[in-house]
């Protein structure tokens, strides 16, 4: 069977499985729709959380980004895992004890204010929509590369599938589908990693392969070899970074705290039966995430080494087919600056303006013609970082079924995250906005109908973003984490750990953190992108890390305002005291 046929078979089988599970586990009540009835065993919930968390970005993009950033890529590895420690220690058990459905539920009741609830809903919607747009795009890319359909057709197929199980199944359907999706995606990630690790180092465990010796007789370890190869080509060492220590610190912190404040992650811990299960479940979630996250840096280093060795100084005609395939899709470009017909890969941008703009027809050696002026550097290759994971099996000449598996895995990662996000979006609309704010006396049946309607509505918006991707998607990822870190996390943390935090303080803090972070990112990313260099940054902190400062501002403003305004009512203090206990309540 051809690779293409295999891909159809794998993707078709996995989709059938997801739909089957959705029909089998559909939700009958709002409680099942919002929190899967609160009966999900902790290990399964951990697995579902891992699938929910690991998006198209984790599966497709992360290893590619690390491959090109080297040590600096560590911010994603530590940032996107360390947040689970904060979640397990500081939020999950207490929010589970609180025992309601949504993050704005907690903010609204703890700060006895509809306005606070609405601020939380706004943050949640911005964060979730930013995120979901990227997922749908990921679905489109995988479809167009591996199934050779239009990107848009891919998005429509993805929408239909998600529609099915998010709208029908609610949290219950999503949870069990995500368990299946986790199995698919982790298998798809590990198989090529193990193959490549064995090919390069004879060690089948990628995590150890990353530290092992290359089997080419040079006696160098993978990382030492990569350092020396890259330095020869004019890059910095793979194992050292270019970013300042403070910036790495701030980005890592913003990502960790942002992770702990992401509503679609937090809400997963509302689905387990007990408080102790919430803690345990966070541990399991991180185990399942760590399997992929400790493999990713190995995949990254292997891919970079393979890429350089396969491409550099190879005649264009002799480059492998993946090079030309990705060139045809527009994610690789080659400008033969010295006219020798061979591909030269060095540090620096190959083309003026960064991204390639293709002209009509072909060049002398059959490459796609480019409109861009070649830059002054010796580098002739433009390569989009997103292709590394998808192209990795082809770069290493792995069998067709592995390539098909990776396509199914990428789709599982994108769909599971999209579904989780769509659920928190629909919940915040039907529960927080309609039931709790706008419409009084909504019956259980009506609320469930609204929940389904808003899930359908959210799927359509997400699909719209997938078909007409806003050019800013890549730039606004910083928003999601920055805003979660600067607004949602502090409000939740203080709500649990500081009884004295009152309505006025919390609202002022959320608004201050949000406005500051939002303003900083908008200024550097949209208004003055040319000024987006370290010299202009506040304390040398990039927009990616500014959520950390936003969080500090939130805390400072909240604590000062709370000192000078009416103290928290006693009833709320009692509620906090009860939340702190794993079971029961404090005797009056």
């Amino acid at each position, binding site marked *: 069977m051809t690779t293409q046929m295999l891909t159809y078979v794998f993707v078709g089988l996995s989709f059938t499985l997801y739909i089957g599970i959705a029909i089998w586990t559909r939700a009958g009540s709002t409680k099942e729709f919002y929190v899967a009835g609160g009966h999900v065993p902790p290990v399964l919930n951990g697995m579902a959380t891992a699938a929910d968390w690991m998006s198209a970005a984790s599966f497709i993009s992360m290893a590619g980004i690390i491959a090109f950033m080297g040590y600096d890529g560590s911010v994603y590895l530590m940032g996107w895992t360390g947040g689970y420690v904060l979640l397990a*220690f500081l939020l999950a058990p207490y929010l589970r004890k609180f025992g309601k459905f949504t993050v704005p539920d907690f903010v609204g009741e703890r700060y006895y204010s509809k306005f606070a609830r609405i601020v939380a809903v706004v943050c949640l919607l911005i964060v979730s929509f930013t995120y979901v747009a990227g997922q749908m795009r990921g679905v489109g890319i995988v479809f167009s590369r591996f199934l050779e359909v239009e990107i848009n057709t891919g998005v429509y197929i993805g929408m239909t599938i998600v529609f099915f199980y998010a709208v029908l199944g609610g949290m219950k359907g999503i949870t069990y589908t995500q368990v299946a999706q986790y199995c698919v995606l982790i298998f798809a990630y590990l198989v090529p990693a193990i193959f490549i690790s064995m090919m390069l180092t004879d060690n089948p465990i990628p995590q150890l392969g990353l530290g092992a010796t290359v089997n080419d007789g040079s006696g160098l370890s993978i*990382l030492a070899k990569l350092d020396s190869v890259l330095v020869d080509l004019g890059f910095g060492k793979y194992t050292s970074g270019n970013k300042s220590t403070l910036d790495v610190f701030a980005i890592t912190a913003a990502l960790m705290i942002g992770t702990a404040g992401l509503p679609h992650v937090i809400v997963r811990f509302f689905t387990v039966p007990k408080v102790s299960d919430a803690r345990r479940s966070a541990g399991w979630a991180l185990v399942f995430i760590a399997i992929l996250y400790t493999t990713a840096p190995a995949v990254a280093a292997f891919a970079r080494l393979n890429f350089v060795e396969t491409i550099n100084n190879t005649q264009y005609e002799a480059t492998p087919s993946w090079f030309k395939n990705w060139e045809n899709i527009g994610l690789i470009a080659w400008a033969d600056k010295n006219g020798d017909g061979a591909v030269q890969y060095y540090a620096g941008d190959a083309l003026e303006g960064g991204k390639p703009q293709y002209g009509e027809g072909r060049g002398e050696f059959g490459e796609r013609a480019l409109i861009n002026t070649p830059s002054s550097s010796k580098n002739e290759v433009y390569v989009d970082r997103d292709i590394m994971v998808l192209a990795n099996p082809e770069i290493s000449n792995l069998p067709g079924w592995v390539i098909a598996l990776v396509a199914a895995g990428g789709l599982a990662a994108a769909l599971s995250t999209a579904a989780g996000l769509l659920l928190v979006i629909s919940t915040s609309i039907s529960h927080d906005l309609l039931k709790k704010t706008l419409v009084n006396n909504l019956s259980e049946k009506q609320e469930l109908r609204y929940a389904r309607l808003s899930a359908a509505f959210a799927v359509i918006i997400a699909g719209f973003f997938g078909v007409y991707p806003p050019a800013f998607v890549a730039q606004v990822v910083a928003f999601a984490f920055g805003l979660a870190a600067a607004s949602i996390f502090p409000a939740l943390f203080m709500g649990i750990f500081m009884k004295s935090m009152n309505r006025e303080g919390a609202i002022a803090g959320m608004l201050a953190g949000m406005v500051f972070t939002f303003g900083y990112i908008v200024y550097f990313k949209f208004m003055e992108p040319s000024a987006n260099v370290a010299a202009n940054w506040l304390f040398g902190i990039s927009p990616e890390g500014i959520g950390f400062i936003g969080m500090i501002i939130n805390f400072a403003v909240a604590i000062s305002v709370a000192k000078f305004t009416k103290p928290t009512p006693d009833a709320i203090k009692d509620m906090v005291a009860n939340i702190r206990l794993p079971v029961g309540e404090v005797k009056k």
Partner: protein
Amino acid sequence: MGHQKISKEIADQYWKANIRLLLKLLSVWFIVSFGAGVIFVEDLNQFHFFGFKLGFWFAQQGSILIFVALIFIYSHKMQKLEEAFNINDDFEPDSYDEDEGEAS
């Protein structure tokens, strides 16, 4: 939310013990990631560990493994703490209120 009544003294002692444990574990969390992986990464890179520079290892592998361990240690210690204070939730069948209509 369950019907067990717990005296204020017990609740306060339990909370203090929890905070002490959290501070200990959070300092480990901070040291392995922000300490070993970021601030002191270059200093640690002079040492080697299974073919890795040590600082680089902490940043890309070690910190993640220690994070996992930390959550399970916390979970286990809290279990013990809750048994000692006799406020264990093991026998709680379902702490969601069944009448989740919410007294609004």
